[in-house]
C-alpha cells in the first residue's frame, strides 16, 4: 500500500514538474507567416451596404455613419447600371477631403511592395506571381499612372464585390 502511494506521489511530482509555461522568447525556427484567404474561397457577394461600408473604410480608414450609408444606398438604387453607380460613387469619394492614398512617388519607389499592399488592402490576399508581375510592369510602363487610379480599378473590380 505504502509503495503504491509512493509511486502515485512520484507520478504527481513528475506531472507537475513537467508542466511549464513556455517562455515568450522560445524559438521554434519557423518563420512567421500571415495567412490570407484564397481567391477561390470568395464565393459570397457583398451586399450593397457591405460594399459601400468596406469601400469607405478602405479609402478613408474610418467607418461611414449609418445615416450616410442609407443615403448612399438610396443613391445607388436610383441608378440602373450598378457598375456605373459604383464608378460614380468611387470618383466622388476620391474627390472628398480625407481620402487616404499612397503617394505616386511611394508607388514608383517600390512597385512590388505597393502591389502587395494594394492586394492585401482591397482583396485581403496576396497577388499571385503573375498578377504581381503584370501590375509592376503596368505601373512601370505607364509613367503617368497614379496610385489613385490603381485604387479605383481595385475598388471597381468584380473581385471586390465578393468576400
Amino acid at each position: 500500500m505504502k509503495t503504491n502511494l509512493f509511486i502515485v506521489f512520484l507520478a504527481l511530482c513528475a506531472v507537475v514538474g513537467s508542466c511549464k509555461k513556455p517562455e515568450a522568447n522560445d524559438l521554434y525556427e519557423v518563420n512567421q507567416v500571415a495567412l490570407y484567404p484564397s481567391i477561390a474561397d470568395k464565393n459570397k457577394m457583398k451586399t450593397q451596404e457591405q460594399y459601400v461600408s468596406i469601400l469607405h473604410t478602405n479609402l478613408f480608414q474610418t467607418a461611414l455613419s449609418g445615416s450616410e450609408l442609407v443615403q448612399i444606398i438610396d443613391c445607388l438604387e436610383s441608378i440602373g447600371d450598378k457598375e456605373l453607380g459604383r464608378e460614380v460613387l468611387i470618383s466622388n469619394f476620391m474627390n472628398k477631403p480625407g481620402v487616404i492614398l499612397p503617394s505616386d512617388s511611394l508607388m514608383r519607389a517600390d512597385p512590388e511592395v505597393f502591389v502587395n499592399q494594394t492586394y492585401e488592402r482591397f482583396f485581403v490576399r496576396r497577388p499571385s506571381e503573375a498578377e504581381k508581375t503584370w501590375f509592376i510592369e503596368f505601373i512601370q510602363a505607364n509613367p503617368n499612372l497614379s496610385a489613385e487610379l490603381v485604387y479605383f480599378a481595385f475598388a471597381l473590380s468584380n473581385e471586390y464585390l465578393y468576400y
Partner: protein
Amino acid sequence: MNRRNFIRNASLATAGAFGVPYILPSGRLFASTGEQMAPHVVYVLFAGGVRQQESVLQRYLDDSQGMPFAGNIMYNMFNGDAPENKIVYGTDQGNGAAGGTPIPRILNQTLQSQGLLFREVQAGSAGHYGGLNNLLQGSTVTTQGLKQKPLNPTIFEYLRRHGGYPASKIWFVGNGIGNSIPLLNYSNHPNYGSRYGANFFAPSITFGNLGFEHLSNARIYHPENELDPMYQMKYFLDQSFSSVGEGGDSLGNTEEEKLSIKEFMRDMYERVTLNAVALPPVTDSYDALTIGFSCEVMKWFKPALTVVNLSGVDGCHSDFTGYLRSLHRADHAVGHLWNYIQTQIPEMANNTILIASPECGRNLNPNPIKDINDWYGYDHSDANSGRVFTIMAGPNVPANLGIGSEGNPIGLTSDNVPTIGQILGVKNEIMNAGFLAPGSTSLFDRI
C-alpha cells in the same frame, strides 16, 4: 498595348478557353430584320391607378361623389370640355380658390384626335407592382413577388436582345425608388437579365438632394489618359477573377456609353443648379419632375425606348381632391412631354410614337376616408380596378380613331409589349418567346 488591343486579346483568350457562346451570349449580333413603324417609342406608365370614370369617361364628380358636375380634366390627352363648376384641380393662382385655376392646355390638338384611343382595356392586375410588371413584361406571373425582379423578360430585354439596341438607347425613368420601381429595369430570367436591361434613373433621388450630396462631386478623369488605364487594370483584375465570379449586375454599357451617362449626370447637376431642367410649366408635383428629367434623357440620348413611370394619382386612397389635381397634372406632364419631343428634339420629332396606359384602375365604390372637401377616397381592388385605357399617337398610328367602349372592352394592358415590339421591329421575336399573357397581341392587330 493599348486598351482596344487589350480588350480584343482578352476576349479572344476567353473565347478560346470557354467557347464562342461567351462572345455572343445573346445569340444575335445584328438588329432584328423586322420592319419598324417608327424609330422611337415613349411609353408612359400612367399614373398610379386611374379610374375610368374621371379619365376617359370624363365624369369628374358625377360618378364618384354624387355631385352632378361632369367634365374633362385631361384635355391634353382627351377630347371634351372641361368642368364648369366645382373646379379644384387647377393651381391656386387667379381667383384665390384652392385649385380654382385650371392649367392651360399645352397641345393644340389632343392626343386622342392625333391618334388612337382604346377606350376600355383590361388591366392585368388591380395592384401597382403587378400592373407595372404587366405593362413591362406583357404578362402577370402569379408567383411574382413585390420585392422581386420581374420573373419574365421585360420589353427592355426583348428590345436589347432581339433588336440589338445598345444599353444607352433603352431607358426607364422612375418616379422614385420605393415600391420596387428600380427592380423593373430587367428580369431574373436566365436567358435575358441584366446584360439586356434598361438604364434607369430615379430623378428625385439621382438629381435631388441625396444625389447632390453623394453623386454630384465626382472627380473628372481624362477619358484616355486616366480612364483608359484604369479600365485596363479593372479588366485584368476581372479576368483573374473570372473563374470564380463576375459582376452580375452590369447592363453592358460600353465605356463610351458610361462616359456619356456620366457627362449627362454632370450636365443635369448644372441644370438643376441653374434651374434649367426641361420641366413642365406647372411643377408642383413629383410627376412633373419625372417628366422634366425624361425630356432631358430623351434630348441627350435619343433613346429607341423611353419608359416613364408616373404615380401621383395614387393619393386617391385618402385624398380625392389631390387625386383630381394629380390627374390634371399628369395630363399636363404628358402634354409637355409630347410637345417637348415635337419642338425641342428634332431627331425625335415626327418619328416618335407615344403610348400611355394606367397600370390599374380604381374601385367602383369609395372607401370611408374623406378629404378636405368631404369627398371620399378610392382604393383599387375590385373589378372596376381592372378597367383602364390605352392611348397612342405618332407616325403610322391611325388618327382620331376610337376602339371599344364602356360596354365593349377591347385590348389588354399586356398588349403594349408586343405593340412596342411591332413599332420597333421585334414583334415576332416577342410573340414567339412564349412569355406573354394568353390572348395578348399587338394593339394594331385589334383595329
